[in-house]
């Protein structure tokens, strides 16, 4: 893997050593382990891999559960993220920066703690326990709890992605749409959303990857019930604990495959994002330089 030539490119011994070290670390920590997951998963052939996934009802259920929990969590996140980013990017109000730092709490809190916090609130002995029991709503140890925990840990991903983009685009196109008679929804669908679509997609892809792979918070709220509340990562762990390594690796390979798809999607989206921000910047700097000239012209 040769180093990409840069303006100061010269193959000094130091740069060669640094590149070698970087390649070594990436290889040892990422490429080799990932490859070995796939190797182990397919060691007995594709048929065995497929059977490990499809013929075990608990594994089937885990895949199904992950495929339902993650999209719901991501959908909640998307709605919340767009609304919150819009609020923060378009309005100035007391407590605004505090609110922005609160968006980051899920990143700084250990997922296990987040899961425990949810149990403390929604569990049978929890704050809302009696109310939920009276309503006969089950949250902890069931599907809604999984969604809650997953939503919590992925909360910052969409909103964090959108705030800088919305701030750099500015409110003027939206105001123009309003002055042309558009309603709030029309402004959102026809102006705001198309402008933030790549950033939004980026956030969604990241949130989805995180949601699929979430272990800690989900572990606590799920109760780890096979065939009921086990998601894919939990299933991987359980199979591994039960010395069923091939089956465990098969499920793991699905997760790893999802990661690779995410990586490609992320790469494609990031290129679009960069292209758009370059365009925006070019338009801005052109306008600014002309503005500057005008001011000078007016003074002279």
């Amino acid at each position, binding site marked *: 893997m040769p180093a990409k030539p840069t303006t100061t490119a010269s193959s000094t011994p130091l740069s060669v050593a640094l590149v070698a070290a970087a390649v070594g670390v990436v290889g040892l920590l990422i490429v080799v382990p990932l490859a070995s997951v796939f190797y182990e998963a397919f060691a007995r052939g594709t048929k065995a891999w497929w059977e490990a996934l499809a013929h075990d009802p608990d594994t089937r259920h885990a895949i199904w559960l992950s495929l339902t929990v993650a999209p719901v969590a991501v959908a909640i996140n998307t709605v919340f993220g767009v609304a919150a980013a819009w609020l923060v990017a378009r309005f100035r109000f007391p407590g605004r920066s505090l609110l922005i730092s609160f968006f980051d709490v899920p990143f700084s809190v250990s997922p296990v703690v987040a899961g425990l916090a949810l149990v403390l609130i929604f569990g049978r002995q929890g704050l809302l326990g009696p109310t939920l029991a009276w309503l006969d709503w089950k949250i902890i140890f069931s599907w809604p709890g999984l969604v809650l925990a997953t939503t919590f840990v992925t909360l910052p991903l969409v909103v964090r992605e959108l705030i800088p983009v919305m701030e750099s685009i500015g409110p*003027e*196109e939206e*105001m*123009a*749409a*309003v*002055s*042309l*008679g*558009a*309603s709030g929804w*029309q402004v959102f669908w*026809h*102006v705001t959303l*198309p*402008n933030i679509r790549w950033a939004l997609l980026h956030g969604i892809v990241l949130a989805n990857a995180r949601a699929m792979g979430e272990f800690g918070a989900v572990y606590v709220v799920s109760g780890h019930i096979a065939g009921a509340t086990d998601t894919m990562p939990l299933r991987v762990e359980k199979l591994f604990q039960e010395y069923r390594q091939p089956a465990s690796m098969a499920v793991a390979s699905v997760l790893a495959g999802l990661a690779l798809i995410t990586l490609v999607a992320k790469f494609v989206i990031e290129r679009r994002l960069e292209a758009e921000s370059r*365009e*925006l910047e070019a*338009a801005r700097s*052109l*306008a600014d330089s*002309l*503005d500057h*000239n*005008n*001011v000078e*012209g*007016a003074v002279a």
Partner: protein
Amino acid sequence: MSIHVREITKSFGSYRALDSVSLDVPDGTLLALLGPSGSGKTTLLRIIAGLEFPDEGLIEEDGEDITERHARQREVGFVFQHYALFRHMSVFENIAFGLRVRKTPNDEVRRRVEELLHLVRLEGLGGRKPSQLSGGQRQRVALARALAIRPKILLLDEPFGALDAKVRVELRQWLRRLHDEIGMTSVFVTHDQEEAFELADRVVVMNHGKIEQNGTPDDVFDHPATPFVMDFLGNVNVYHGRVENGRAFWHGIPIDYPEYPHAQAREARVYLRPHELELSPPTAVANRLGTSLPASVLRVSRAGAITRVACQPHGSDQELHVDIPTETARHLQINLEPGAHVAITPRRARVFIPGPEYVI
């Protein structure tokens, strides 16, 4: 449609952007809000558009109170400073936007957009994206988009600010012709006095959230109401002198000022525009009469049809700027070069007695 602004006040936090501003825009007028940045001109424009709401005061259209009416219902065309074109839509869709949100039938949309593309001379460019247009073209798309909804009022925020000089002048003349054709009440904001004077029927000069002067371009230029207007309208020589018995003194030269007939001398500022000063060869007679000021030439620069001369009056360290037509300078029987002696005669001057504390 006429617009009446009644004692509008608007603050952003502790910053007072508009301070009890009243303004009438008669039907069919093209009015310029002229002022430096931070003077409140853009805030006033946005309040008229319904994009901002005043803390106090009223906005009326043809006598109807529309203060509380949202921008969406005001039927106002607004052209933003950096155009704010919808970047992901084609030129056609940009112009069509206001019609589409009104659920206009497709063929009518197409007809109206084609008509507007013709009006702004962008036929055949409907399929382009805003990023594929030049600044002047974007400006015209923004204008077409604002006009598509057949607004009753057209508002433009620094409409030519982001264009280069040549395009700016062309577009300005074009906009003036367009206004004469359509006859729509229009208000535009600018910090460029040339733009305001060339384009507008009325010029409103603003400073610190207040209106300093409101009048026709000739009015404002020839009879600036305040020192600020005088200063803002460009290059001016300021002299701190005194006034007494109906006369102000500029470097010892008397200037009639009947507004102050009192014997008690007061401080006064005398403003002279460079083009309102005359140069002549220094003659003993003129000096003795005290009607012209002996000075030495410091610098001379020729800017096309105008020659700018920087002079220093004898016995003063002040610099005076004199603009004379280059043609006149040529026949002036003085060798205009640094060190040359000249006599400066004011053709016209304005006297302001500073301070609102002025009480007789």
